[in-house]
């Protein structure tokens, strides 16, 4: 879509500009209210407060996808379980899917409540070294709907980043809803002054999904969020009876691997469809410890190792740059 609407005045700064809705040319433009309201006014002091809070968090990883239901929450949970298998590491999961929080159920924490302490909100702990925060912990019943427009969602995300007392954390993994809207812009904006390792993009093999995922990768490029890599989930199903494989979501345009190559981002691997993954999620258990001997568990472990390698290397380079400065 053109950055300048057809009905805009001559000196339109462009809808994507920082000045959108604010220049003198914007006076009287039919789009002025939309443009000016779609950007927060001035720098938000919260960005600095988030920076202070996040100074005790070493690595930050976002889990993103343009498409719904591809397995973002499932991957987030299993990345966290996998990282937390190392007792010496402290892991945190933040769920910023405000209207459809799945993390409490997937991680077996449904019905838990958040506690307030002097130093902020305390996360809910799965294990001593695995803490979780989600809007799900703030609802009084699992059927409660969070019927909120953007600004209110952004306010809560700000609170999650600024007011949760995570303590010293090695990895913070952030689960997001599908799309490229308020939640995504807010998380990127509030973390803009902190060190973020990058984003992991989840997709399924078919074009209907890749279509949205390309948009998400372009979003990352636009906001300068590094892409750690792409994970293809639900790629192929092996019948438990005849052991033959079927492509339920057919990779009609070459699947995620080709898409990643075309878009010049790394490809991290494929996780097959396994009904036991869904069952573990429904029961709030880790598939990695429930069914450790399986192709899907192997796939998870290999992908997690690649992410660890990436994060280690990236932090080193980053520290080197700081020393250079």
């Amino acid at each position, binding site marked *: *879509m*053109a950055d300048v*609407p*057809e*009905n805009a005045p001559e000196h339109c700064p462009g809808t994507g500009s920082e000045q959108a809705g604010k220049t003198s040319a914007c006076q009287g433009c039919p789009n002025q*209210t*939309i443009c000016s*309201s*779609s*950007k927060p006014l001035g720098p938000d002091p919260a960005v600095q407060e988030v920076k202070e809070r996040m100074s005790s968090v070493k690595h930050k990883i976002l889990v993103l996808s*343009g*498409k*719904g*239901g591809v397995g973002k*929450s*499932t991957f987030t949970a299993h990345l966290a379980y996998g990282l937390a298998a190392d007792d010496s590491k402290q892991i945190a999961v933040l769920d910023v899917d405000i*209207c*459809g929080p*799945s993390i409490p*159920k997937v991680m077996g924490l449904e019905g838990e409540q958040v506690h307030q302490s002097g130093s902020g909100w305390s996360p809910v702990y799965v294990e001593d070294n695995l803490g979780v925060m989600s809007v799900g912990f703030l609802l009084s019943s*699992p*059927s*409660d*709907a969070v*019927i909120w*427009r*953007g600004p209110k*969602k952004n306010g809560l995300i700000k609170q999650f980043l600024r007011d949760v007392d995570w303590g010293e954390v090695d990895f913070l993994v952030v689960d997001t*809803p*599908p*799309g*490229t*809207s*308020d939640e995504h*812009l807010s998380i990127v904006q509030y973390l803009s002054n902190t060190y973020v390792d990058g984003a992991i993009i989840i997709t399924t093999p*078919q*074009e*209907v*999904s890749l*279509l*949205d995922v*390309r*948009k*998400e990768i*372009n*979003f990352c490029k636009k906001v300068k969020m590094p892409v750690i890599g792409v994970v293809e989930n639900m790629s192929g*199903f092996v*019948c438990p009876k*005849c052991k*033959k494989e*079927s492509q*339920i979501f*057919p990779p*009609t*345009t070459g699947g995620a691997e080709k898409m990643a190559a075309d878009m010049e981002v790394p490809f991290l691997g494929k996780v097959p469809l396994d*009904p036991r993954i*869904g*069952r573990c*999620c*429904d029961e709030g258990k880790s598939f990695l410890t429930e069914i450790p001997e399986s192709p899907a568990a192997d796939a998870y472990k290999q992908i997690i190792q690649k992410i660890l390698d990436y994060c280690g290397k990236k932090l080193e380079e980053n520290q080197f740059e700081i020393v250079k400065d």
Partner: protein
Amino acid sequence: MADGKSDQTLEEVLKSIKHVILVMSGKGGVGKSTVTTQIAWTLYNKGKKVGILDVDLCGPSIPRMMNVEGNDIHQCSAGWVPVYTDKDQRLAVMSIGFLLDSRDDPVVWRGPKKNAMIKQFLSDVCWGELDYLIIDTPPGTSDEHITVVENLRHYNPDGAILVTTPQGVAVSDVRRELTFCQKTKIPILGVVENMSGFVCPHCSECTNVFSKGGGEALAKSCDVPFLGSIPLDPSLAQSLEEGQAFIDLFPNSPTLNAVNTITSKLLLMESSGDQ
């Protein structure tokens, strides 16, 4: 891009549309867009005039699924002309996909901008006479949903179809969408359970890849109609990839049967509602 400025009011648009159905789900990827397209095709094959409005602005799937990707929207005096998928112009589509320069462009918009776009989609599209307008939504209970519902509420839309997959993680999100409908006073036409049961094409063994029965149990526990289950069928996914009408390709399949059952129930509600 055409700006879609028009003198039409929402009231005028809706006056010539007999039925308005929303397709919603708290959960992503459960098949909202799939159910939207399959119901549209079925109604079309029964001789109805159908419009599909895609209000998923960040992840529009309808153009691809209806094989109209890359089309442009034209302007007429009254507003935007939708894209027709057929020669006799009985199946029309409107989506943000038609307004983007490139199919890979992200639509990075916050709520207010999305709301303005949706308002335009509701009042400025020249559908003409329609039997059914089916509205495909993104997952969630936020800006898109609130805006659509706030604008339509006064014109008595038929109601919402809630789509879920069988497993607990999906059902608990859809439970929240049900609360949304109740709070905003949108009637619930019923629950569709999608992707329930996969029949292996090699040995005919049925595996419940995403569990089974969650949608029906949800409908029962919340006392809303259960419209039916659609099996997990790779040929359905394949036909959507290519934008082909599944109804023409696999007319005798159990999957199409399931879609037919669901559509018949909707038509039955229509006739009882008319009296």
